């Protein structure tokens, strides 16, 4: 017989849950969500035209991929995200590391970068369309603007967090300034920079959808806007599910990559 104070309550303050309980809980909440959705749609509580049942949405998702060439839209969207994100990283990482290392460089760029962060990227859409027309360029530019300034600031902050003693150790070992930045400051900040990239990639997906909804004939967002015109709510919901799945996939992939690249960091997730 367990004594009363050993009995475990469901609500234990900050006691970790077991893995089976965690899995059960996670599945449970989704089961409830799809359950309510399914019942609401099938029983006619809601207009089935506006809220098609989940099974229909999944069937449509399959059909979109299998026979209506949705894969090419998805591929276009992924390419846009990755290309623009790579461009943003190519600018933000070197610049952020420089700004975080050299106060003189920070003094030049921080007043500039800091101001740009407060300009919402979508406000540039009209002018980007005028400058770049309707091709790939305005979409890539929007994603780039949306990501690069935040990424610069995050990289700078993470670089500043590299402890002074590490830098001074390198200098007293006879490392030049260049070697110190490349072989001590950068690798020391890299795990955190990688985490910042992971967060910013999620933001890139947000801007992608905005770009494709506003000004595109291809990509997941454009497919959803086409579907809206023909009242195909199941296709719109399919688009949302695919975007969510892609976001989740990239986030998990980044998490895996982080653990693989930085095994000395004992971090969960």
């Amino acid at each position, binding site marked *: 017989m367990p004594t009363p104070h050993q009995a475990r309550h469901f609500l234990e303050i900050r006691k970790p849950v077991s893995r089976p309980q965690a899995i059960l809980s996670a599945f449970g909440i989704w089961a409830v969500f799809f359950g309510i959705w399914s019942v609401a749609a099938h029983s006619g509580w809601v207009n089935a035209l506006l809220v098609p049942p989940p099974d229909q949405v999944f069937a449509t998702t399959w059909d979109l991929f299998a026979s209506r060439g949705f894969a090419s839209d998805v591929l276009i969207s992924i390419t846009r995200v990755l290309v623009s994100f790579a461009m943003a990283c190519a600018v933000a990482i070197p610049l952020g590391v420089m700004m975080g290392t050299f106060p003189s460089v920070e003094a030049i760029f921080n007043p500039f970068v800091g101001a740009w962060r407060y300009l919402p990227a979508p406000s540039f859409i009209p002018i980007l369309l005028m400058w770049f027309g309707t091709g790939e360029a305005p979409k890539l530019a929007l994603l780039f603007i949306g990501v690069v300034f935040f990424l610069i600031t995050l990289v700078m902050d993470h670089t500043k967090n590299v*402890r002074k*003693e*590490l830098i*001074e*150790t*390198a*200098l*007293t*070992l*006879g*490392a*030049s300034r260049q*070697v110190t930045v490349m*072989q*001590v400051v950068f*690798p*020391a900040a*890299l795990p955190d920079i990688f985490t910042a990239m992971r967060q910013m990639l999620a933001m890139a997906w947000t801007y992608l959808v905005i770009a494709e909804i506003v000004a595109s004939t291809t990509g997941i967002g454009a497919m959803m806007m086409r579907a809206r015109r023909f009242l195909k709510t199941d296709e719109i919901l399919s688009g949302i599910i695919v975007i969510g799945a892609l976001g989740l996939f990239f986030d998990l992939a980044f998490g895996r990559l982080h653990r693989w690249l*930085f*095994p*000395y*960091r*004992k971090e969960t997730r």
Partner: protein
Amino acid sequence: MSEALLHLDAVSKVFPISGGESVQAVDHVTFDVEENRICVLLGPSGCGKSTILRMIAGLEAPSDGAVTLHGKPVIGPARDRGMVFQAYTSFDWLSVRRNVEFGMKVNGVPHAERRERAAHFIDLVGLTKFAEAYPSQLSGGMRQRVAIARTLANGPELLLMDEPFGALDAETRWHMQELMIDIARQENTTMVIVTHDIEEAIFLADKIIFLSSHPGRLKEVIVPEFKHGARIDDKEHIVQLPGYAELEQKIMRLMREEGSREEQ
């Protein structure tokens, strides 16, 4: 007779503080460090001992006076003056062996020689079994041993240590102090060690530079005569030697005088 390797000539340091004011951290400090000797900078907090060490390392420039190594003025950090900090400075992304090789690598020491020297110094600090481990897998004391091996493997003329064992528990600190005596004997290393621990100072020092606080001034140069120029590598043994207790009391009195002066 050993000759002076390092010479501080009337070294002062003034730090600007907010509001256009400034504070004098170090005030005309002069002393020598002879080759193959262990010199300990001791004093109450605020005596500028860490600042003096940082000026020797070249991480701070003196406001006045000069630091010279072999008669040449120190300008900036360089490999001839290796530094071990109180905070852990392991490069977490490198294995123990590659941490120890780091200085040699950036200074262009050939691969084979690098390997050999690293192995020697890793062995010297007793970490051979952990050569391929990452620092995050090691205890605090082991990490400080990595830092010591990394600095020594780089072949500095002077090993500078800023309260290197301050973050360690008592037993580990004791082992580390004995290790330093071992290293000094085997490698003929010249050391300047900053501490506020009187026991540590007496155990390690061939010469103690005692500093007073606010501003940091040289108060007394103390040579632990009771050791008769020998190094005792056993802490239990040293405290029983005649003369140890007297010296400890003398230094405690100096510390207390400084403390009461502070309060006035």
